[in-house]
């Protein structure tokens, strides 16, 4: 207050403060920019095991003699009272060979419920070579009370999979989608999964 310095201030304080505030604001923005940057980075490199390729229609399959072992893993988030398991623990597939795997989901509760499966591939770099042509994780899944359903995945492994990868684990976690009202869920037909466009 009244203890202000008699010393004249160098005029450049304003300039330096303006620059530093700008840096701070830019870094705040950078924190948020990390979110899209991270997604792009993971999609390109496979870091995080989410780089799964979705096949384009009419893609040519080049079969190879090399085989890899695929392990299937299933988890349910505690917020969703479903039973969810892989019908087969492992499979051995040839590279480039179209294969299918089945999961089984069962709604243990007395009300209809929507779930969404989030996938992950280990080792992460294998996700770049893991191509799914059809998957229950592409859309939201609705199960009526006590309904159970077999859920298929159609996939193949690209033949240029790096040599050091001998085993691949495909993991799904089912989360509850709470955005759907009970009426909307009940209106879903048994074999009519909602066509909700996935975010990724």
């Amino acid at each position, binding site marked *: 207050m009244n203890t202000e310095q008699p*010393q004249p201030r160098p005029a450049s304080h304003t300039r330096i403060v303006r620059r530093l505030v700008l840096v*701070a604001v830019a870094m705040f923005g950078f*924190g948020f920019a*990390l*979110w899209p940057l991270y997604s792009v980075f993971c999609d390109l490199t496979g*870091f995080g095991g*989410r780089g799964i390729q979705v096949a384009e229609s009419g893609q040519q399959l080049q079969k190879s003699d090399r085989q890899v072992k695929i392990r299937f893993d299933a988890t349910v988030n505690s917020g969703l009272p479903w039973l969810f398991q892989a019908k087969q623990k492992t499979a051995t597939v040839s590279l480039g060979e179209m294969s299918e795997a089945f999961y089984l989901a069962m709604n243990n509760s007395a009300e209809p419920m929507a779930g969404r499966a*989030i996938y992950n591939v280990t080792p992460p770099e294998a996700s770049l070579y893991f191509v799914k042509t059809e998957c229950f994780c592409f859309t939201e899944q609705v199960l009526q009370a006590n309904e159970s359903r077999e859920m298929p995945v159609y996939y193949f492994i690209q033949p240029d999979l790096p040599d050091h990868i001998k085993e691949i684990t495909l993991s799904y976690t089912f989360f509850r989608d709470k955005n759907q009202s009970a009426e909307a869920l009940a209106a879903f037909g048994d074999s009519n999964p909602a066509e909700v466009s*996935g975010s990724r």
Partner: protein
Amino acid sequence: MSIEHTHGHDHESHAAHDDHHDHKPTGFLNRWLFTTNHKDIGTLYLVFALLMFFTGGAMAMVIRAELFMPGLQLVEPDFFNQMTTMHALIMVFGAVMPAWVGFANWMIPMMIGAPDMALPRMNNWSFWILPFAFAMLLSTLLMDSGGPAAGWTLYPPLSLQGGQSFAFVVFAVHMMGISSIMGSINVIATILNMRAPGMSLLKMPLFVWTWLITAFLLIAVMPVLAGAVTMLLTDHFFGTSFFNAAGGGDPVMFQHIFWFFGHPEVYIMILPAFGVVSEIIPTFARKPLFGYTAMVYATASIAFLSFIVWAHHMFTVGMPLTGELYFMYATMLIAVPTGVKVFNWVSTMWQGSMTFETPMLFAIGFVVLFTIGGLSGLMLAITAADLQYHDTYFVVAHFHYVLVPGSVFALMAGAYYWLPKWTGHMYSEKWGKIHFWISAISVNILFFPQHYLGLAGMPRRIPDYSTQFADFNMISSIGGFIFGASQLIFVGVILHCVYKSREAASGRVWEGARGLEWILSSPPPYHSFNTPPVIDATTVAHAGEAH
């Protein structure tokens, strides 16, 4: 509050010096609430940090008391988790960081020959935000949903499962961030614009250099933390899915963003400690600092490297091999500039005429014990080994070694070193030494056994443990109680020095002290260096080293 001491001895040591500059505002509110004086604000910061040190320390005592024996004795597990979380938040943001800002306020203008900080009113604001921020943070303990209990790193999804009080935590962190950023802007503007004529950058004391670099780190990473907790806030209350896997987000991304802040943050807490120790060791070894320029460049290198090693905190999330190797080697690279620093401190002492007053004891204790913490950090950097150490008491032992006998010992060294300068009185050397020896011994009893606990697999942040960990935990708790109690000696020494000590300190205070703060009287006049001092070999420590 113990902050009225400067009234008591206006008439003493500096009556003849700068008397017309020594008019302090009258009235308690004018003096402390509205102050724009860097010395007053420095005192406020230091007193606040000491209060928070004891608040966080009390929580540590609860933790160690619960861990004294296996089984649940004293507190509920959820309250235990709140204690570990709050202990960390308060010690990091409430004790260590404000204490360093307090030192910066007091010492930087005097060390570079400036009359005050560049932006005195903003300086007042940066301090007075803090009591409100911590009142908000602490108030969560009284709320229905309790305080934050997911660890100070606030990892989702666990941190998002807390109750409504989470919003208070987020806004408290925002306020601490704003305070730190304003303080840093002030420090940078002061150092770059207000040095006395002739005080070139490479003549500045190392404490000023380390704080300049620290301030840049703060401006770069505190906003990133603010962004991360804002995303947590919107995930918790507004239905966004930044970190929610079900909605397409990724909880691991929070860890990346958090540690992009968090790793520079640990250097924010330790770089000013390097600076203080680099001031104290030359004084009591009566030799100039060995390798001044190397120290400056080493500090800058450490600061740069801190931005590119963050993922070594999260080796267990599942990273490609190339990523693990990169973060392992980049982390180990930090040992090089840090090793330069330790080497230079030891070389400064080599063949010096050393005496062992309390500040020097704490500084040497810092060098030895911080190095132990640095070496356990190297062990943690080894990716393959980290999979075993991760989230165990080995990590707890590591970061407490660098923070307690590291950063906190340097704070105490600095407090003893400059206390006679600030108050104009000598503290009790006898009680200072007693404080050092009890602290130095008990801190090792407290943290050294935790290495063994961690190697044996005891997880951190758990209120109960398997019986094979019982003995080391009991030893650790006993060390903790002694260490906690011995800090009361520190308070006693300060109060005695401020109010009771009759032994006047000279301006120089320490025979070997060099630097502009020592050409002022003790205590310094309320407004110092209104006329810039002369910079030459008789007044500054590094005058001969300008290249």
